[in-house]
């Protein structure tokens, strides 16, 4: 298929073919990353601006590595030390970004929808690296790639996503990437951490809600645990982290309810001992490190599809 998108803001309106195209391209990038000299030229002369208005090390480094591997120039505008912290408006920042003339703006922002605001006001291609509770498209795509690599065709596979769904851009982007590939998703977690509409029967197509984690995991093909922010307890959404861990924490006993060898994933950073036990996080089923590696390849794939010139030959 021919790639036509200019931005990656949300995958909620992507076709199955588009998602597959990204995953196939990711496969080619995994090959580039396995070369002795991890460097390819398709973004030579291009500038990628990393605009992180919310602190993040992992995602920013992953994008930076992806851009540099494809020979792009990388400029960082991060929250600490930049004018974002001095109260510069997003509007001003966008005008600056526009004047700098980057080809791609990779942005992380605390407000849902902020990448749409930027994409409307700049000529650069915008990649959403996480906005509020809304979307984290590259995480959804890398999770889909990782699961497909582990399980093969995802049709009729059932994946459990457990934890703080309502505040999770990862959960939304996982749904948007996995359902079009044929997977079904069981959402689990405390009712206070589910969007009320999804709790009351209006779950997105391809998903169901099962608050009982044991029942959700029974016979599942994989599980993705979400990070639990400690402030949820102070917000009155949870009685205690201890109770959360007891009811919704991933333990060895729980994950063995799934099919034999069914993988365990986590977008990181993990609160070991809260949403996931250390022995599960680092056990035989864990794909957590694979997710990190694949993350670079997925981000390379998107940069390549958006602004790359069509050659992957080593320089």
């Amino acid at each position, binding site marked *: 298929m021919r790639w036509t998108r200019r931005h990656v803001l949300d995958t*909620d309106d992507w076709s*199955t073919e588009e998602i597959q195209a990204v995953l196939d391209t990711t496969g080619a990038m995994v090959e580039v990353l396995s070369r002795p000299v991890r460097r390819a030229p398709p973004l030579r002369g291009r500038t990628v601006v990393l605009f992180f208005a919310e602190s993040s090390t992992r995602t920013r480094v992953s994008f930076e590595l992806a851009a540099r591997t494809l020979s792009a120039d990388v400029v960082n505008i991060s929250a600490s030390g930049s004018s974002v912290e001095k109260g510069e408006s997003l*509007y001003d920042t966008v005008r600056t970004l526009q004047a700098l003339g980057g080809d791609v703006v990779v942005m992380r922002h605390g407000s*849902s929808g902020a990448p749409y605001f930027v994409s409307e006001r700049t000529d650069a291609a915008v990649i959403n690296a996480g*906005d509020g509770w809304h979307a984290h498209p590259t995480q959804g795509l890398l999770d889909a790639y990782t699961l497909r690599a582990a399980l093969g065709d995802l049709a009729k596979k059932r994946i459990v996503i457990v934890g703080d769904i309502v505040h999770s851009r990862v959960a939304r982007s996982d749904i948007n990437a996995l359902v079009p590939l044929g997977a079904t998703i069981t959402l689990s977690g405390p009712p206070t951490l589910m969007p009320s509409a999804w709790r009351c029967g209006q779950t997105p197509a391809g998903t169901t809600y099962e608050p009982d984690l044991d029942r959700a995991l029974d016979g599942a093909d994989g599980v993705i645990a979400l990070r639990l922010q400690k402030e949820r307890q102070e917000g009155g959404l949870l009685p205690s982290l201890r109770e959360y861990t007891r009811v919704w924490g991933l333990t060895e006993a729980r994950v063995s309810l799934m099919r034999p060898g069914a993988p365990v994933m986590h977008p990181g950073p993990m609160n070991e001992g809260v949403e996931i036990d250390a022995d599960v996080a680092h056990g035989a089923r864990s794909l957590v490190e694979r997710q990190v590696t694949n993350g670079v390849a997925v981000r390379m794939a998107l940069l390549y599809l958006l602004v790359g010139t069509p050659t992957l030959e080593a320089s």
Partner: protein
Amino acid sequence: MERRELEARGFLVTPGFIDLHAHLREPGFEESETIASGSRAALRGGFTTICAMPNTEPAIDSPGLVAEVVARARAARGARVLPIATITRARAGRELADLIELAAAGAVAFSDDGSPVDDARLFRHALEYARTGDLLIIEHAQDMSLSRNGVMHEGAVSARLGLPGIPSAAEEVAVARDIAIAEMTGGRLHLTHISTRGAIASIRDAKRRGVRITCDVTPHHLSMTDDWVGGSRAFAWERGGSLAREDGPAPVRSIDRSPSSRSRPSLESPPAPLATPYDSATKVNPPLRSWSDVRALWDGLADGTVDGIATDHAPHASVKKEVEFDQAAFGISGLETALSLVLGGVSVGWCDRDTVIRALTSGPARVLGLPIRDDDWIAIDPDAEWTVTPEALVSLGKNTPLLGRRLRGRVVCAVVGGEVRYEGGLRGASPVGSR
């Protein structure tokens, strides 16, 4: 006085509209609106009388400030401006303002709009105290603990967009409280910008019991749904292509993402105009609700549960709106598009035109306890089409999700106290000579 004769044949001539709820922003926020610009925008929308909400800076909580608003409005020579004063001093929700003195200075009603009077005991005392002189209390009914941090209607759309929601219950809990307190005190209470099905049901029931309450709904809540935040621009009556379907047609941009349904063209619905999601022009409080809520508001209008249509005209300078959605100010600039929006619902038979016109004229007059003036009247061309553009709007607030939209129905002439104060498109409307 010069006497002029106007040829308004073929137009709909009605008493001037009365808006129970407009924000004129002066004093304090003159970059968003002034008394002059707002009262002229009102005429453009057919409103010859508007009630100005007191959440200015400073808030209108003293007789001198009321008098100042009256004086500035008179000088502006736009629509008549009736000041509303605050219920509580500085609109802080802690102690009552001098309601009787404020009324004597010209305040026609009292409201802390923008916020409810959160303290139920203080609200009770306001209604009790206002019985001296039978003063009108207007309440923005919202439970602040339930709506906290919310920026749009809580439902399937907020779940998809990852935006914190304002549940319908935030309004319904407050309406139930307010009805109980109105019933207990016998005070005269008006609930403004009602937006949910449950609130309409409670008000209908309370009116049947004889509680002295009235309410209004806004043109935007009568026409737009929470799908607009997600980028839809289909009016409630346009959804699904078939008009007025009772079961609530499928959302325009649904989350039905199963492989079989992907890229399957919908056969029954015309493509709705799509805008970029998270447009802060759709951010308003109370939020744009569901299709079912919109239908309930129209039903309330048709059966008399709803006494008036009020704009909640909330103009904002672009700096308040050209920001992230969750940082943006709440409010839609509404005076100039109100007529077109409500005529849309009339055109599909959700309510008859006379009822809608009454809700813009005699309904609000009765809420205020004022007579309909026969020297305030307007002429409407219900079929004229116009495009909403920043230049077309007289209001300084260009914050409306209707920008670029073609609407039907416009005011061609507005007369206040026998004086033609607005003329636009009235064919043959030039003076035919003084006599």
